[in-house]
């Protein structure tokens, strides 16, 4: 008897937990998922934004949910939706995740909402065009809105460069190699390009662009991975760790690169602008920031180039949400992409505030005045190109990443052959979408 009673108490307790979790709400609740792409207490910052928003919009509650890395965020949301779950209402996901979600019919285009706005045209044209590229499909429909955007950029230890007699950063690959070699010692790497750690494609893309041919175009059924430019680009990256000897063979790990730079163990690094604030705040030397050096395609601007990166705001709806809910969701998206928030977010983290007006808004306006480095990241956008995205993005990106890793670690010595094989697999997959 006794024991039955205890079991009953247990179940009652458990039932209480469940009902507690499902507290009734009259408000419209917006489930907002974000990746912890920043270490500056992203949760605290989002809570502050949510409080500001809720004050302006009584009746709407923002439920912010941390959802891991970008990959974790994408995977948990897909798993949730494919398992029949409700999923988020709004999420920050990589700008390249567009087709993964559009193919499945999980998201709706922002275009619908923009069209319904009185000043929709002005709203969209305030964003930097390069940052819109990944959010627009081949028909010209806007799907997602830039939020925490970035590009790879060159960080250099200006003190070390000056010691070695260089008072300006390298502007092309030849200078890059020269300076890197001059600054390499037993204790220090001349240049770290973080292509190790599971995600070489992004850094690699900047070299492909600098060699004159991005691996992706506006057509999501086409990938250019075995062109002479694509092959030359990967061979150059590989040589940094082998023949040229300015960094570790196989490339540096993503996470360790800024730490090594801050500790003075790397003279120059390629890394994301999303890291600008951490590096500026943490360095005890003068931090220089410059465009990624131009490649053989030329210094007239065509040889510069980096992919864009970072996260956009996506709106989730399978057709079941009411007009009221969707309006509330759009308000939140508008709020997060407003110049005020973009300015605050950009100044706090170093992400490139994505609309022009944000740069004239405080606190970013003063911060950019104080640190010219912020403006460099923004100005590089004029040379930036689309980040890799296609149909079946996850699978194809996987093929490209694995191929790059096998070339960079020396497993596949013949880069052309490995890339031809990869291109054949990719074409096979994309043929299904024609």
């Amino acid at each position: 008897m006794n024991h039955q009673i205890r079991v009953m108490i247990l179940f009652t307790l458990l039932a209480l937990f469940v009902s507690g979790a499902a507290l009734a709400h009259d408000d419209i609740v917006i489930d907002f998922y974000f990746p912890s792409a920043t270490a500056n207490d992203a949760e605290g910052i989002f809570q502050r934004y949510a409080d500001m928003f809720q004050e302006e919009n009584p009746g709407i509650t923002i439920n912010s949910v941390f959802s891991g890395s970008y990959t974790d965020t994408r995977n948990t949301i897909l798993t949730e939706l494919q398992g029949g779950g409700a999923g988020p209402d709004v999420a920050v996901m990589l700008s390249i995740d567009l087709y993964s979600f559009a193919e499945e019919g999980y998201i709706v285009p922002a275009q619908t909402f923009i069209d319904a706005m009185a000043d929709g045209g002005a709203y969209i044209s305030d964003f930097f065009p390069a940052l819109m590229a990944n959010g627009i499909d081949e028909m010209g429909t806007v799907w997602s809105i830039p939020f925490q955007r970035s590009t790879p950029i060159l960080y250099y230890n200006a003190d070390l460069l000056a010691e070695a007699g260089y008072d300006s950063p390298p502007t092309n690959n030849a200078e890059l190699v020269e300076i890197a070699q001059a600054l390499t010692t037993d204790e220090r790497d001349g240049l770290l390009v973080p292509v190790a750690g599971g995600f070489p494609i992004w850094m690699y893309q900047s070299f492909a662009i600098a060699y004159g041919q991005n691996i992706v175009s506006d057509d999501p059924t086409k990938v250019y991975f075995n062109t002479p430019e694509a092959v030359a680009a990967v061979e150059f990256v590989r040589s940094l760790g082998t023949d040229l000897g300015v960094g570790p063979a196989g490339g540096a790990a993503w996470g360790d690169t800024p730490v090594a730079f801050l500790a003075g163990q790397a003279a120059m690094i390629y890394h994301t602008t999303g890291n600008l604030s951490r590096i500026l705040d943490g360095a005890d030397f003068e931090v220089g920031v410059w465009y990624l050096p131009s490649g053989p395609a030329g210094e007239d601007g065509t040889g510069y180039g980096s992919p864009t990166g970072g996260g956009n705001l996506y709106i989730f709806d399978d057709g079941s949400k009411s007009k009221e809910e969707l309006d509330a969701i759009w308000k939140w998206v508008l709020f997060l992409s407003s110049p005020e928030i973009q300015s605050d977010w950009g100044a706090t983290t170093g992400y490139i505030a994505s609309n022009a007006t944000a740069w004239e808004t405080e606190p970013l306006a003063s911060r950019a005045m104080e640190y010219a480095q912020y403006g460099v990241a923004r100005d590089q956008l004029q040379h930036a190109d689309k980040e890799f995205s296609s149909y079946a993005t996850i699978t194809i990106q996987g093929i490209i990443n694995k191929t790059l890793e096998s070339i960079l670690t020396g497993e596949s010595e013949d880069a052309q052959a490995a890339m031809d094989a990869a291109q054949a697999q990719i074409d096979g997959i994309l043929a299904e979408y024609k």
Partner: protein
Amino acid sequence: MRAQSPRHSFFSHLQPYLLIAPTLILVLMFNVLPAIKTVTDSLHRPARGLNAAGKAPDYVGLQNFQDLFDESHYMGARFRRAFRNTIVFALATVVIGVPLGLLLALLLNHKQPLRGLWRFAVFYPSLLPLIGAASIWSFIFSDSIGLANAVLKSLGHPGLNWLGDRNLALLSVIIVNIWKQAGYFMIFFLAGLQHIPRDIYESASLDGASDLQQFASLTLPLLRRTLLFVIVISFIFAFQTVEQLQALGEGGPNDSANLLLYLIFQNISERRNWGYVNAMTIVLIGVVLTFTIANFLLFERDEGN
């Protein structure tokens, strides 16, 4: 051997079933039925191409499995590596981790000063969340700023790219696993050793048997059951433990340190690959099942003797 009173009411017939029902239902719900569903799903392939979202999957027979064993296929190449790595990883855990656990148990079984501290030193890793253990080791193995290379460099060695070198990445993951598990295995061996009566050693000593002889002729045979048990659980664990990869290189360059279950986890999100995910799951379950049944038979035979 029925111990109940001779009343054979309907209820007393039902009793055993009622007692096992909760466990049975839960196992059916969360292990058996999903596994069966996995088998049928592995024979299907989700619709692909434009507007595939609402379409039903096609029956493809064993095509998914054929693709997995085709090395020129994009998933086949990855599967082959992950499968091989998983076997190497499991064998290394068993071949190195289990003897190490036994050695530790022998060293720390008898009374000695600070025995608790010694045991703590080797057992604490198994108390850490796998993901926490992995994050500690990600710092140790870091190429440019890690502890291992700091030590190597101070000894004049240029350092190793532990997680970034395709020839070292799997070894690094194995080291972490052995460090994490050896103390856990030790606990089982300590338990087993407690069941061996002291006096048999005393008589062996009188007969002039050396420590090594005693170990070979007395300890090892008496620990046989424990040894089998530990081998089985270490093997099963080895197939299930993948969370450390989340913090340790996410499978290494070109899958050189990827494990089967983590490859499955990496691919669950894209619908087009679900056929492969399910087929890989079946292969994984098949290996574990075969191994466990083989051992179970050994156990039972052992018990019969």
